């Protein structure tokens, strides 16, 4: 149970949150037309006759969009409805050429499912929680109005018009901004794992309508407001905080929350009324007569299921269970598609190079991938070309390190040079002298010199001053210019000091 409470003048309040996330489906063409969907094209360059709602044009369903939505539904363990239908949502606006949006009100493609968010004490989520998902339906996106192109008129860009959206509707199961943030992040992660949405909130390919109400803990739900088109996790959390406090102030000062649609202003972090209930549209939903009901065959569903990748929860469990990684490392590595993809490639290359099972090198690779490599890259800044950080190059460095040929410090130095120059790591190690000395004979003779030059310290050590061992190591390494293999140095010193 979330302990998140807002202290009002009259007592404690609980916040109730539900999210409708609109996720643009990754597909080459639009939901009902052959026009392309790429982001950033010239205005109105990706508009078909269908998108522009020319007279007599008809929608034809793009099966790939359905496939992506079904796969998404499967990833949140949802009911997939083998029979669904498209409805028209009728309203007039300049970014909606048809005068209706083709959506699914009565019979959505995906029914109830759920999403797990993990405990995160620091963020204020005391324990794991399951957030219910009501449904996912598929619908058309609208175009965009541009108000800054002409002093008295607005321009319309229809490139986005007709692009497929999944509307993922949660149940009102969230109780704090942190939970809502975790929900959006987790959902985004799943969408990106599945590959059904690129999750790019800045470009608007994922955005949320935030439903917020407040109540006394344990009482009935209050009246909710819906804040539209919020396009970052931080903003979602801001909206919730602002709305909850606004509603509490309103109620405590004797007013009542109105069910209304609101807009978020990222500049001020506040929301304002977009339209009240009285002005609410009557969308006159009815089944789209241009489209037949959608019936899914078993073979299609099987293909969808078979094409699902390992999902975040399962991957995390495997990293801990099979690879022996820490919970922290597993969570960090599985949060983003790019991160785990890089890790898994590097892990495979390293294990192969060293000739050991993945489990035995996983922690070394995880530490490298999560902290050492990013540290080097960040420190170098603009000098580094991250494209040079290939899996092969990094695996070669880790291989040398595992074999004791180079030290951790040398590994970093070599990686630096790789990033700067793109040279081969082994070649760097050879020509730059970035190799550990493993020659026991050579090390022995250096140690002999060190011990001879510090015979007084040797006496002290032998008479019980164990701490001096570090001194001998330091002196030896200094004499070896830092290139001695520490393990070998330690061993010989121990033997010699008896």
């Amino acid at each position, binding site marked *: 149970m979330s302990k998140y409470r807002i202290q009002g003048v009259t007592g404690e309040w609980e916040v109730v949150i539900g999210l409708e996330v609109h996720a643009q489906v990754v597909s080459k063409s639009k939901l009902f037309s052959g026009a392309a969907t790429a982001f950033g094209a010239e205005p109105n360059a990706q508009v078909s006759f269908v998108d522009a709602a020319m007279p007599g044009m*008809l929608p034809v369903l793009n099966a790939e969009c359905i496939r992506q939505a079904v796969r998404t539904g499967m990833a949140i363990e949802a009911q997939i409805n083998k029979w669904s239908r498209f409805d028209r949502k009728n309203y007039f606006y300049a970014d909606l050429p048809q*005068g209706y949006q083709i959506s699914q009100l009565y019979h959505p493609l995906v029914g109830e499912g759920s999403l797990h968010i993990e405990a995160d004490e620091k963020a204020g989520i005391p324990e794991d929680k399951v957030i219910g998902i009501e449904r996912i339906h598929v619908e058309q996106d609208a175009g965009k109005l541009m108000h800054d192109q002409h002093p008295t008129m607005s321009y319309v860009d229809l490139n986005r018009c007709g692009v497929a959206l999944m509307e993922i509707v949660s149940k009102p199961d969230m109780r704090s901004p942190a939970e809502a943030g975790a929900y959006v992040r987790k959902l985004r992660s799943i969408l990106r794992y599945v590959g059904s949405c690129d999750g790019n909130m800045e470009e608007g390919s994922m955005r949320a309508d935030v439903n917020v109400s407040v109540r006394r803990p344990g009482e009935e739900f209050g009246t909710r407001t819906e804040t539209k088109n919020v396009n970052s996790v931080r903003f979602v959390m801001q909206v919730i905080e602002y709305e909850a406090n606004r509603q509490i102030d309103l109620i405590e000062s004797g007013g009542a929350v109105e069910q209304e649609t609101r807009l978020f202003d990222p500049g001020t972090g506040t929301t304002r009324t977009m339209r009240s209930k009285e002005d609410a549209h009557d969308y006159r939903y009815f089944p789209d007569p241009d489209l037949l009901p959608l019936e899914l065959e078993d073979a299609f569903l099987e293909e969808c299921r078979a094409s699902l990748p390992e999902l975040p929860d399962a991957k995390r469990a495997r990293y801990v269970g099979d690879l022996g990684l820490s919970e922290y490392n597993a969570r960090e590595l599985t949060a983003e598609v790019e991160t785990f993809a890089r890790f898994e490639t590097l892990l495979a290359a390293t294990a192969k190079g060293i000739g050991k099972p993945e489990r035995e090198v996983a922690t070394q690779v995880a530490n490298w991938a999560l902290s050492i490599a990013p540290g080097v890259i960040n420190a170098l800044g603009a000098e580094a070309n991250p494209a040079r950080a290939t899996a092969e190059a990094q695996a070669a460095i880790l291989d040398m390190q595992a074999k004791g040929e180079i030290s951790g410090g040398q590994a970093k130095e070599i990686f630096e040079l790789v990033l700067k120059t793109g040279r081969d790591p082994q070649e760097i190690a050879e020509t730059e002298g970035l190799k550990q000395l493993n020659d026991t004979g050579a090390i022995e003779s250096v140690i002999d010199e060190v011990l001879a030059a510090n015979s007084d310290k040797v006496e002290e050590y032998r008479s019980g001053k164990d701490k001096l061992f570090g001194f001998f190591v330091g002196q030896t390494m200094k004499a070896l210019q830092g290139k001695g293999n520490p393990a070998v140095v330690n061993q010989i010193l121990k033997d010699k000091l008896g």
Partner: protein
Amino acid sequence: MNDFTNLGVKAIRDGVAGGDFSAREVAEAFNAAVAGAAELNAFILTTPDHALAAAERVDADRAAGKPLGKLAGVPIGMKDLFATRGVQTTAASHILEGFEPEYESTVSQNLWNAGAGMLGKLNLDQFAMGSSNETSYFGNVSSPWRKEGTNAAMSPGGSSGGSSAAVSARIAPAATGTDTGGSIRQPAAFTGICGIKPTYGLCSRWGVVAFASSLDQAGPMARDVTDCAIMLEAMAGFDPKDATSLDMPVPAWEAGLDADLRGKKVGIPREYRMDGTDPEILDSWERGKEWLRDAGAEIVEVSLPHTKYALPAYYIVAPAEASSNLARYDGVRYGMRELPEGAGLQDMYAATRAAGFGDEVKRRILIGTYVLSAGFYDAYYNQAQKVRALVSRDFNEAFKQCDVILAPTTPTASFPLGEMSDDPLAMYLNDVFAVPASLAGLPAMSVPAMTNKDGLPLGLQLVGKAFDEQGVLNAGLAIEQRAGFSARPEKWW
């Protein structure tokens, strides 16, 4: 010189193929006939060059020994609901006046591919909404027919009134029509020609200005059953651009024509015998039964118990869909735009649509908006959909006992223009016999039966099982052969 305008589709096609005359001669003759019939107002736009160009291609192909299409050398009229590339397409509305699509409807493209040419874009009721051709922004169409002894302008029926007037006046051998609730069959009946609305999904709706998507269906209008079969073969076909298009091969209906109905059963729906039906209509129905019996069919009585609910259900479903389909005419991207001084977006919508739509279109948009409104949806739209399912079920049951159904096409003969235009309900009743087959998506045809005491044509309607156009055409042919309908309007234009 041969009067080519007396020739129908088959005669022209065969004559051109056989070298009896050139396609160009035929096109010129019909172009001249069209130009001489402006008083009918059957065409919104004439396209003589299109007809000539198509004819010249056919003549060249023939000279080069290339194979000729199913309609090679046949110039036709195109209802102005079909988008034609680079040629004004208006749906007889002000709001689309001047609109020239950059695309060609599938049906018209099929016709051009078959070797047909276009005489022009035919007038119709605005957005195909009307039963008398009095709602066109471009003026009423006059039927070439007149009551004996009067000069009153008569209705050619609607919405395909330009099509029916042109074919019956012999200024076009054939024309396209569309039928949402009788818009091919009723005008055909009013003007003494044939017209068939095929099974829903047989002709692509792509590029046809939408009225009510779940009902709209294109079909041919021509002088006889054979010509309709030829036209339909060219128009029909699977179209991946229309999600409701039927994915099946186009049957060879012309080759399959056979008026021998032995072993067939013809159903007579009891519920179509309504109180107050014109006795001459009932007489034509009786004659129809005799003709079909004579052709070898057995006449059986069938029941379509939900018939009386069909018309009210239709006038909920069709306006509901229309109210949504016509939302795209908003003045933003094409067509007319009314932008009053200082107007915002909503003002522009309102001004554009107020000026661009006619009264009947507005009436139906209002009805449709109302029946879909929150709180009324279940009572109207959902209820109408249930009725629609029951009407379909009625037909399914009836077709267990018969192969084809015979009924009148309309409750009355044609009426003078203006006589019913201020009584929408009376006008809507004109489609009472036509609407049930539309709701059920079944093939239905009107063939001329006789003339009434005023010398006006009466039609008989044949309704078939889904996909059984052949059965409908064959029964139509049996009637045609026995009715000996040879009346034609006297030329007054």
